[in-house]
């Protein structure tokens, strides 16, 4: 295998692993801020107990997130040195802003959250929860902004073969930043609701801390549905942006090989890029045209409008995209059922639903990973769309054997870390909150 392929595999492994922790962090900070706010306003100890429990989970996740995040800047310089040299003066700015505005805020304030409950006032503690929330979300913003710049670059000029920043805000708020940030943040919040609901379901099944986890589940179930529905809408808005700014990627997502009027919206199918068709296609006729322009007969650009060598790997991204959508639909259904049970006042009496919630915890994580695989592979053959091809972005002076060594080592190392993390994380969940429920 060549250097570039090995480097892509390594980057996929490292960022895919790191993303799981980033995702959980954002989702949990929303809950912690919510419960700290309720504790501040209502002064009920139950809110504090839930918050303390979630802070313990966050502490474990954050350590693994920080530790695995060290790999990212290493990969930019080590494996993708021509990319770093070419675009560092724009891309690097976003990393500086991320480390200063968000990582610093998050890491320092988290120290107060984990260790400062008895040392600071309620208001300072709440402020720390707010800072961790803001820091983690700012972090997501800068990273998504940097990634969006690679998808839809703006605010730059090419001078002496390198990218030069010409417009800070154009680069930061490029064509897809806002909608992608929204889509990613909502995805993390959904992961938070499923994690909280799943943990609640576990304890309700075990009849432990029932009062407290009923409260956590009740709070989670409404946003679970609202956020998953909104996510479908934000995903649609993202695709509309792609049609304008990255049409070949949109065509690959939707499996449209040939420009056509009245394009169908495929729900299922097996893509075959070699023969430019979707086997066993199942979908709604004319619906893609309608969704993209509001007319059932409008024209949708196909991949045939673009040179074949610039096509993204259609088979992979069609599949990952549609699997992501399927998981999304499953999450909407789970949220809808939960809300139905809540309205019927049966939410806490249906064990089968608790089991569904427990086993649904991985769903948003899978959907997120699939979404990112689709996004990143959908950008191929470019690292920076229309500016730098992947094959021209990797390091030249390093032998492939060194990446083979590092990839093998990282794969084994991360496998061990996964086991260690799950042992600790599940341990914290099983232990549950400190103290006993207070009967009011």
């Amino acid at each position, binding site marked *: 295998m060549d250097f570039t392929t090995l480097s892509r595999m390594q980057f996929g492994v490292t960022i895919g692993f790191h993303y799981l922790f980033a995702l959980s962090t954002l989702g949990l900070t929303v809950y912690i801020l919510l419960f700290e706010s309720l504790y501040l306003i209502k002064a009920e100890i139950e809110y504090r107990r839930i918050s303390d429990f979630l802070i313990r989970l966050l502490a474990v996740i954050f350590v693994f997130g920080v530790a695995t995040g060290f790999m990212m800047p290493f990969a930019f310089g080590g494996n993708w040195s021509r990319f770093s040299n070419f675009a560092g003066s724009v891309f690097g700015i976003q990393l500086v802003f991320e480390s200063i505005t968000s990582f610093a805020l998050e890491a320092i304030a988290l120290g107060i959250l984990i260790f400062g409950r008895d040392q600071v006032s309620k208001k300072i503690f709440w402020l720390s929860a707010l800072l961790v929330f803001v820091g983690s979300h700012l972090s997501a913003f800068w990273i998504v902004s940097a990634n969006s710049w690679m998808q839809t670059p703006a605010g730059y000029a090419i001078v002496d073969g390198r990218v030069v920043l010409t417009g800070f805000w154009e680069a930061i708020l490029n064509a897809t930043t806002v909608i992608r940030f929204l889509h990613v943040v909502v995805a993390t919040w959904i992961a938070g609701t499923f994690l909280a609901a799943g943990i609640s379901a576990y304890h309700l099944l075990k009849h432990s801390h029932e009062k407290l986890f009923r409260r956590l589940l009740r709070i989670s179930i409404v946003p679970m549905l609202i956020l998953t529905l909104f996510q479908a809408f934000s995903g649609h808005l993202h695709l509309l942006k792609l049609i304008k700014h990255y049409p070949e990627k949109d065509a690959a997502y939707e499996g449209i090989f040939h420009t056509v009027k009245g394009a169908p919206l495929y729900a299922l199918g097996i893509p075959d890029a070699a023969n430019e068709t979707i086997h066993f296609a199942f979908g709604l006729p004319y619906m893609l045209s309608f969704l993209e322009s509001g007319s059932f007969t409008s024209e949708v650009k196909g991949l045939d409008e673009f040179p074949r060598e610039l096509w993204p790997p259609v088979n992979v991204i069609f599949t990952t995209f549609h699997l992501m959508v399927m998981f999304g639909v499953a999450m909407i259904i789970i949220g809808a059922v939960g809300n139905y049970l809540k309205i019927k006042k049966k939410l806490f009496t249906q064990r089968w639903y608790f089991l569904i919630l427990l086993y649904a915890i991985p769903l948003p994580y899978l959907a997120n990973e699939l979404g990112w695989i689709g996004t990143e592979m959908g950008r191929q053959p470019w690292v920076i769309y229309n500016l730098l091809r992947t094959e021209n972005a990797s*390091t030249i*002076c390093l032998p492939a054997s060194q990446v083979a060594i590092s990839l093998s080592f990282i794969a084994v190392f991360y496998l061990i870390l996964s086991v260690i993390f799950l042992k600790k994380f599940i341990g914290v969940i099983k232990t549950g909150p400190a103290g006993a429920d207070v009967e009011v």
Partner: protein
Amino acid sequence: MDIITFWQIMAFSCIIFMMFMYSILDGFDLGIGILIGLVTENDEEKKKLFAAITPYWDGNEVWLVIAVSTLFAAFPAAYSTMLPSFYLPFLGIIILFICRAISLDFTYGGSRISKIPLAVFSITSFLAPLFGIFFLTVIVSGITIDGTGAFRVTAGNILSPGPIVFTAAWLLLLLLHTISYLACKSDGMLKERLLRCAKRLWTVNMALFPVAFVLLCQGLPGIWEKPVIWLGAAITISGMGLHRIARKPHLEKFMFPLSTLAMGGMWLIIAGALFPNIVNPAQQGNALMTIYNSSAPLNTLKLVVLFAMAGMAAIIAFVLFTYGILGKKRKKSSEVLL
């Protein structure tokens, strides 16, 4: 001096300052990892040492992260040359940091000390700064550049006495700095043991530092004409010299500022020995990687430097606030959450 030169020097200075802040803050985290198995006699003492770092360690690592990202943004050509040149050694150091962070999370569960994570924490706390400082001193003493423009570390680069002795001196100073921090956070037998350890470390380091300084700088062209080198050495010697006086009971609170001063001197030596290079060449006449030929364009440099300076001021204020409130005695005893 033209305008871009000014911003290039500012960016270089910012990175050195960030590394200085990292070394004094995460320095005692690392030092506690090294010392914990050597100066404690029971779990209670170990817990005291852990309590001195657990709320802060991830905040302290912020400085390393911002230094690396600033190097990337301000000097992308240097960044993209150095990382591939030292690919596997850098990977090794990162793995050590990952293991260290995670083992810290597992060592102290609030009620008992776990032995295996403690061993991992101690070993990685020793190896990470050892390799980190050694790598830095190798860069200062000079590295061979091959035909492709990449740096190639040779046996000659590694086995020269300058980097080895300077690394040893810096590690000893790091331990002295750690004890200075702990002197205000411990009492009783533990404190006595720490101060005895400081006395021995101080004696060895006062003898070792001048030798290390000369060995590192010898052979670097024009090094002795740089005033900043002498200033750095003078500050380090003064900091360590006064540290001896501050070991008296009523002056202990000055130990930490003085070891910080000595650390600052070390960074001035490094900055002076490198400037204007980012990596010193092993032979004169080799292609140089300087702050002038590897920097980002002016508008990026300005943006990064101004933002980094404002950010650093805010982070320092935030760190002082956090240390202030978490350093107070607990209102009531409670278990640590982790």
